[in-house]
Each structure stands twice: as C-alpha cells, then as structure tokens.
C-alpha cells in the first residue's frame, strides 16, 4: 500500500454484513489530507456502505475508523459531522419547504439559537450570530452561484441546482473531510465542470474530498488518488494511472 504522509482518515479492517452478505469486508484504507480521492468499483462493491459506515449511519461489525488519530466508529452521525466529516447524499435531500438560504443556514453547526431557552429569551448575541450565519451562507451561495435563488423554495430548484445546494449545505459545517456520493450523477456537462471547479478550488484550500464516481474521465483526470473496491475491500490504490492499469481492477470491471 503506497502512502505519502499521515492520513487524515483511515479505516482498519472494518466489516459490515447485511444478513449473509458482507457488503464491506475487512476493509482497510487511508485518505490523504488536501487531496481528492476517487472511489471506484463495480456495482455492489460496497462503496456506499463504506461511506455510510464512515458517516456513522451504520456501526461497523468489526474494525475501527480513525479521523486524525481519533476513533470515530460507532459514534452517532451528528457527532461525526461535528468532528469534521460530512457526507452528501447521492440523491439530493434538500429541506423542501425551507428556502435555499435557510437550507444553508440550518446547517451551521452549534448555533446558540438552536437551544430552545436561548431562542425563547432572544439574546442579542444569538441574533448577532444569526447575522454572521446569514453572511456565511450567502458567501457560500455565491461560490456555487445560487445566490440569485436564495429566496426560492428548495423544492423549486432543478435537479442540478439541488446537487449544488447539497454541496453548498455541506460546506456550512466547515468540514475537514467531505464524502461525496456520486456528486456528478445526472448532472449536465456544463454543471459537471462547474462542480469540479468548485471542488478543486476547495481542495486547493486544504479541504479533503473522498468521492464515489463512475465517470472514468473524471476519475482519471480530476482525482489526485484513486481507490478501487471490489467485494467489500480495496483491491488497488494509488495515482489514477496506476490504478487504471491494475490487473485486478480490470478483472473486477470486466468480470473476469
């Protein structure tokens, strides 16, 4: 296993079985900070299950998950987010009846106004914080070019705009690691370019991305590293070129 530097996120021998099927099977891998790591693999390889394990939606049956030296396996999802790992959904899960701006504002972590007593009393500092949250949300909205739609209901956005909203919302929590589950699926080429541009811009500002992607063009040209999974565990890891020519990977994809 090639490794350069200390990983920000790593899994060690994690296993998750559903009935008799081991969706993730003794999976050990490491994600380098400040890089875009692509996760590829045929259908049923266990990619989404792996993401759900890292994000805390499932607890692993065995093994450990470590974020910057701290174990996070078995913690509830909200705690894992608070520690800096956020996951976007493959199919956008916007808060339909909130506006686009509110969708972002609600994602702000640790808002003092989200405690009923401080909300009821109405401290000035709570509402001053609310102003900061609004500014931050508007900044992120202009980054993803949704600022014109800030007052629209989230349910009124197009499919592609919802993908942007999904990414923008996850940025509100200042994540250290962002897990993107097929961020480009069903997105037109123009928007794909825009989304990748945003992701690369954030990567250059030291954000770490771990991304499930099926489009090999994107994986080969835009990812810094690639991990290929098959039958619940990684079979190859390295620079895109290395993984592309790995025999195990070709076999897994061609069903050899």
């Amino acid at each position: 296993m090639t490794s350069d530097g200390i990983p920000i996120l790593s899994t060690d021998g994690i296993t998750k079985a559903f009935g008799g099927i081991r969706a993730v099977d003794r999976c050990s891998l490491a994600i380098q900070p400040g890089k875009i790591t692509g996760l590829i693999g045929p259908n049923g390889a266990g990619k989404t299950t792996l993401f759900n394990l890292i994000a805390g939606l499932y607890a692993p049956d065995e093994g450990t998950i470590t974020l910057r030296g701290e174990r996070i396996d078995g913690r509830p999802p909200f705690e894992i987010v608070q520690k800096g790992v956020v996951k976007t959904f493959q199919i956008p899960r916007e808060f339909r009846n909130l506006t686009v701006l509110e969708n972002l504002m609600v994602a702000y972590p640790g808002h003092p106004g989200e405690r009923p007593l401080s909300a009821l009393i109405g401290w000035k500092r709570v509402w001053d914080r609310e102003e900061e949250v609004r500014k931050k949300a508007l900044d992120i909205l202009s980054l993803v070019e949704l600022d014109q739609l800030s007052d629209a209901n989230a349910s009124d956005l197009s499919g592609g705009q919802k993908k942007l909203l999904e990414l923008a919302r996850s940025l509100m929590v200042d994540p250290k690691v962002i897990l993107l589950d097929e961020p480009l699926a069903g997105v037109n080429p123009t928007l794909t370019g825009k989304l990748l541009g945003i992701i690369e811009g954030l990567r250059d500002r030291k954000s770490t991305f771990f991304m499930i992607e099926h489009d090999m063009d994107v994986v080969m040209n835009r990812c810094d590293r690639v991990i290929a999974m098959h039958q619940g565990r990684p079979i190859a890891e390295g620079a895109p070129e290395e993984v592309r020519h790995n025999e195990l990977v070709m076999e897994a994809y061609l069903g050899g």
Partner: protein
Amino acid sequence: MVEAVGIVADVASFGALVGIFAMLALALNLQWGKTGLFNAGIAAFWGLGAYTASMVVTNPVPTALARPGHWGIDQAAFPAVFGVSTSFTVAIILAAIAAGVLAFFIAIPTMRLRADYFAIATLGFAEIVMNVFVKNLPGITGGVEGIGGVPQPFEFGAEGWKTNLSYFLLVASVVVVLFFLLERLVRSPWGRVLQAVREDEDAAQALGKDTFSLKLQSFVLGAGIMGLSGAFFAFWLRGVSPPPNSFTAADTFAVWVIVIIGGSGNNRGVLAGAFVVPFLEYFSVRAKSWFDLQEPLASQIFYFRLIAIGVVLILLIMWRPQGIFPEPKHVAKRPRWVIGR
C-alpha cells in the same frame, strides 16, 4: 337583564373552552406542524394535567364503602393572594410538569420510530395511561368516578356570569401569552432546525444535528402545554372523569382536526381552527332550543357536529390541504426586542 346575563355566562363558558382547545392546538402545532411528530396520545397528556391539577386544588378524599376516594392536598396549606388560593398556580405548574415528564418517558422508547409507528405507539400509551391506570386506581384518581368538587380560581357565588367571564379572561390571557412565546420560539433558529428535522430527519442528522434531542425538546414542551391545558379544563369542568366521559381518542382527534383545518405550521391558523370544533359542539347542543326543533330532529341534532366536521375536513383536504392559513415562509425572524449587549 336576566337573559343578557345568561348569554354572557354561556358565551364566556364557550370562550373558555375555545381557549382550552387553542392551547392543545398550539401544542400540537409545535409537535406536528413544526417537528413532524405524529402525537396521537394528546388525551393522556391533557388528562394527566387535568388529574394532577384536580388533586392539587382539592382536599384528599379517603376511600370508603361505595366511594373510590382520591389523592388531594389539604387546601389550608395554600395561602391566598388577593383572595385567590395559590393552589391554582401550583396546580397549573405541576400539571404542565407532570405531562412533560410523562412525555419524556414515553419518548425514550418511541422517539426513534418513524411517523406512523410513533403515532400508534403514542395512541397505545395514551389508552394505557387513561384506561388502565387512571381508571383503575381508586384511592388515588377516584377510579371510574373521577374527582369532583374542583373549584375555579374566581368564584362569585350566585353571580355565575362573573365567575365564567373572569375565568374566560384568565384562559384567554394564557392563550395570548402562549401564542407569543411559541411564535418567538418557532421563528428562531430552533424553529428552523425543527422544521429541517420535519422535512428530512436523515439529512438533518447528516448535517450534524442531534435530531433525537431536538424531537425530544419539542415533544416534551408540547406535552407540557397540553398538561397546562388539562389543568384549565379541570377547573372549567369543575372536576375530571376518566374515559369514556373525558380524555378519549376522540379528544385527540378533535385537536388534530383543529390543526389541519387551521393550517398546520401556522399558529394564527390553529387559533382560528380552535373555534371550529368547540363551536360545532356548542351549536349542536343549543340548536334544539334556538330553532325550536321537533322530534326526531331535536334529539339527533347533537350528532350534527360529527357530520359537519367530516364534511369540512373532506372539502379542505380536497381544495386546500395546507389549511385555511398556510405555513408562513421564512422561518427565523429577528424579534423586535432582544436582550443583552
């Protein structure tokens, strides 16, 4: 003059009942309208509040032959302030706390259930609390007879209209205060995050929100308000009696009808809706004498309200499913006054 006084007494009594249902509806609007919690056990929180309050404002009655007896507090223990016993204040506060505590313990095992399962669970709990426990604890709750002789805070003896009117004013002011407090709460970041939980709990959790705790806060607070309403109901009725007389699933559904008609998620809407159900009840009881009805209509008009509620609900769901007043857009809004520097 005698007639005018009678009308005042009657309308004030009706108004107080509207206020009591308004409290229930505001509470359900927090739980369901804002948080998406399908609470089908309103009757239990309401009933527990009513029983708690009744026990605080009456003397204990020991069990005797052919008399179930119930808990109580020696009323001499409560000093009077401006001629009103402090027992009422204590009763109202304890009623809210008791219902909130019950909600907490019901929530621990059931809160993780999805909407429809949560509804069934709360409905079941409510039936158990009222029908199994409350009804079968003579010596504590008065068993099947309930608790009688509950006083009202302001008693004017023969001048019943004054008693009713002052009680109506008390209930109305509580509703107004509750309305403003709840508006302030739901128009805060807290209200916004509750709404996010309602829209998509998984997504809220994936953004770092402790959705269990948020739902618990909303559920317990709402149940506390239902208990508060129960205290005012017990004073209004001057007593409590167990199902099937009071605190049945039908009461739970009446509150649901109010919230759906008024507009789920809109506190103004549910206040308007709170007139509908008590009014239909009021109307169907009095229609006989108002219109000088003949038999068989005279004895059947009472059931008119059930038909009317059904028709109103069907029409509304067909043409205006969001209710008379839809939920306002833009959740959090800085209040006109804030505290601190």
